[in-house]
């Protein structure tokens, strides 16, 4: 079995340079590649284009790279909950491309699948459609959207084996599987790295062929953005 294991996050990020385009998995702070983001901050690479559904919060997730002005362009679907992001965007320091969430996911998926472009109805008739090719199918208008091109894809999984096979947990799955194999190099960090043969092949979400580097992550904070609970008094 091909061994994709690298020692640590530093080795996993070898080759990341300023000006590159990076994909980062996660939805809000759920399922984000925490170790890779910390390492990118430590490396100090800048002028990055980051493709991720959200931009983190002020002091966590991609918000860390915004603090240090390492991101030049952010491609996302939703960027609320981040004051520093809003400030950089409104004063023009940060270039932002907001795109519909389904289109974002499918542009990752298309890159993974070798599909150069596809049509979707999302955004037709809105400013998202401006300057884009449109076409009618079955009496409805659609926009032509292109697969992303990225240098690195950073994903986070729950479990992985040394061959790069991945299993995700709960809604921490989100964009992570779609970003695997969607960039030139896919780096997976996992909460639990196990020897080949340990994972049940029936349970694997992403086969190792889509992953170039895998490492055991450390010190996961897994911060909760909106802690909402039922209490016995108000419960139902």
């Amino acid at each position: 079995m091909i061994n994709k294991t690298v020692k640590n996050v530093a080795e996993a990020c070898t080759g990341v340079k300023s000006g590159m385009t990076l994909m980062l998995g996660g939805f809000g702070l759920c399922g984000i590649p925490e170790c890779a983001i910390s390492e990118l901050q430590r490396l100090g690479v800048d002028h990055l284009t980051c493709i991720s559904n959200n931009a983190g919060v002020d002091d966590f997730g991609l918000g860390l790279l915004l603090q240090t002005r390492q991101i030049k362009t952010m491609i996302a679907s939703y960027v609320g909950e981040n004051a520093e992001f809003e400030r950089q965007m409104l004063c023009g320091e940060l270039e932002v491309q907001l795109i519909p969430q389904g289109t974002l996911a499918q542009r990752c998926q298309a890159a993974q699948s070798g599909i150069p472009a596809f049509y979707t109805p999302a955004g037709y008739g809105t400013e998202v459609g401006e300057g884009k090719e449109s076409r009618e199918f079955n009496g409805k208008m659609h926009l032509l959207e292109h697969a992303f091109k990225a240098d690195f894809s950073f994903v986070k999984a729950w479990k992985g084996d040394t061959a790069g096979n991945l299993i995700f947990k709960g809604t921490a799955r989100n964009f992570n599987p779609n970003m695997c194999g969607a960039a030139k190099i896919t780096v997976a960090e996992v909460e639990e790295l196990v020897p080949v043969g340990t994972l049940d092949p029936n349970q694997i979400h992403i086969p190792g062929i889509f992953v170039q580097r895998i490492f055991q992550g450390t010190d996961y904070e897994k911060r909760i953005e909106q802690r909402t609970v039922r209490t016995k008094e108000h419960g139902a």
Partner: protein
Amino acid sequence: MALNKYQIAERIAQEVKDGYYVNLGIGIPTLVANFVREDISVEFQSENGILGMGPFPWEGEEDADLINAGKQTITALPGAAFFDSAMSFSMIRGQHVDLTILGAMEVAQNGDIANWKIPGKMVKGMGGAMDLVASADRIIVAMTHTNKAGDSKLLSSCTLPLTGVGCVKKIVTDLAVLEVRDNAFYLLERAPGVTVKEIQEATQGSLVIPNEVLEMLK
């Protein structure tokens, strides 16, 4: 009396039918889940990757790996399924989701909706809203009839950047239930104690008033 957000959610819950897969937006729509009749089977989809979403967890049982699209901690009901974002939007774009309930800043009498951007002021992004409104067959908007400044949110045409064109069919506000029909808002029901005149005054777009306008059913 105008309805509060819980009462808006309660009224919308009547539109949820047995066997529906439903996507709930952030805000008032999220509350709808609390009012769905217990004798029908409904599954809630959250676009970040869960079908069969349950209520908030009990204190101490929160799981960072289990959230809804509003980033709130949730639970998964028996029979729930997790999936990736591309598959989630296959459910939405492929029209496998039966009903979409979402909020809005403005709705136009032709069914246009705006809910993602106020130029120069608020830019949060559209999230999954553009995909949802472009594909869903049944879309219900949950919102207040007027904004905080008192201006109508039911307009002849939207002034804010659009989320989708000609897609809204039904609107439930704190004052009324309306349908978009033939380039106008058709008044179906009024909130208890709210007069047709009050609704008229709060509606900037064309409003069609049938001979009889019933009070909302509780």
